[in-house]
């Protein structure tokens, strides 16, 4: 399974990563090698096998509907790279 540079660039955008031309080069060949190894899963017939997403297969874990203390606003904002009194600050989302 050989990946192309274009595919790697597309995935990098999906993953919100900026990759240098060097990194794209390296990533293309390394990911291709790893996917080659993964190809062997295709040897197995899994038609009637149920997917296993989790080791403990439980569902609907209920909790009492009770109020309990959460983080204070200040605690929640305490690690923000940029903030004001009550919000996270980010670069403008909409262009002019």
């Amino acid at each position, binding site marked *: 399974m050989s*990946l192309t540079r274009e*595919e*790697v660039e597309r*995935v*990098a*955008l*999906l*993953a*919100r*990563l*900026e*990759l240098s031309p060097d*990194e794209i080069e390296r*990533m293309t060949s*390394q*990911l291709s*090698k*790893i*996917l080659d*190894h*993964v*190809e*062997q*899963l*295709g040897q*197995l017939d*899994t038609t009637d*096998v*149920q*997917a*296993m*997403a*989790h*080791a*403990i297969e*439980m569902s609907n*874990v209920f*909790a009492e509907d009770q109020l309990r203390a959460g*983080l204070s606003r200040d*605690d*929640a904002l*305490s*690690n*923000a*790279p*940029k903030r004001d009194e009550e919000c*996270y600050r*980010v*670069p*403008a*989302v909409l*262009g002019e």
Partner: protein
Amino acid sequence: MTLIQMTATELKAAIEQGQTSCVEITRAYLDEIGRVDARVNAYLWKGGQSALDAAQAVDERRTRGQDVGLLAGLPVAIKDLLCTRGLRTTCASRMLAEFVPPYDATVVQRIAQADGVLLGKTNLDEFAMGGSTENSAFGVTRNPWDLDRVAGGSSGGAAACVAASTAPLSIGTDTGGSIRQPAAFCGVSGLKPTYGRVSRYGLVAFASSLDQIGPLGWSVADLALLLEAIAGHDAADATSADVPVPAYTRTVNESLKGLKLGVPREHFDDGLDPAVAKLVQAAIDVYRQQGAEIREISLPHSRYAIAAYYIIAPSEASSNLARYDGAHYGYRTDEVKMMEEWESERKALEKAGDDAGLNALDSPLVRMYRRSRAEGFGAEVKRRIMLGTYALSAGYYDAYYLKALKVRRLIRDDYDRAFQEVDFIVGPVTPSPAFAVGAMIDDPLSLYLQDLFTVSANLAGIASLAIPCGLTEQGLPVGLQLQAPPFQEERLLRAGHMYQVETDWHRQRPQLP
């Protein structure tokens, strides 16, 4: 014997008999950290005075005749992947270099409640991704048996601090072997508990369906002690199991009768280093001499485990690590510089009348995300995010992610069948002993293949123990792996202890001049 040469269980007995104090023990470990850690680099943060103060508080309570918890004031090192309130938690990443959690992980709380003393926070592969601790943004951890070799990973610091006698007990995490492999490389004992046995609340997530927190120490009895302190249901982690926690420390000394051990033939094929094979066979003989019945078994899908794991774990990682966006917490790129660059690109496109280019220009917010993540993450983390994003992307989901989940079921079915026949599955932890620092850095796939014997336990969610079973001719430790059905830690620890009663590999320590 000096304090730092004793096992945690022995230290606890010595405190309780009044032969030493928590302050003396903590000071002895801090002194040894000062003497050797610059060479080993197991610690990212060292407790110092705060550890001595905590130890003093336990001593005072004991002197006053008040109750003291299970850990009796023993120092514990914690992998820097668990949140500690008010104390930097870096995950060995530039992304979180300044992150100070506003809350404690449940395991950190339970250790404090059991009167464990936080001795320091240990190094790891960035976000626990790797098998050598070379992917740490803060320098590689070295193997105390041979400083030119890796300590393993991702809990490299957690294993190396025990091996270097700079902590009696340590907390690691295991997503695909990250407790067991470094334990084997460093010649110490380590347990990956059953998925759900220990709360993951406050553990920085890598692959949520595989991650599990567990103890490392010299002896299996030490693991029983630390596991008893941290295990059990936690309402804050919906995936933690509501299964009673046995008093592991009370029964760990009781040997098991009529033991049936399964040896998977797939674990002893060409890929296994002959020196490892020999020592593991010798360890199996120790059980045979104690009356265990040894049976050859087969785990036919184990050869597909790496392929399934390296789809599932990166897929979960790509989703979990989406939270590092440079907006809420963690690293953000230099915004002023980024905006200047963006403005000049935009102006140039406008001037050239390049409408297509203007349309394709990312927004400042997207650029902030992409650049913050590019600068904050290291190469291995980026590789796994890319792999996972690809596997989950439109058109590939069925072929990769869903396929891997189905193979995961086949791997679990192999175990269920095997455990109808045998009590435990026994074999090597790793195909070879610790490798040289730098040997695999440019070859990610080769490094992934080292996880061959360990990833299946995570995919299946079962319990698995690594204990030292000898040294190669070069003086490098080799580990024995014992795997058990879910929630059988009590019997698993007893089985491990049976080996350590007959042997003293777990007492051998490297000499660091």
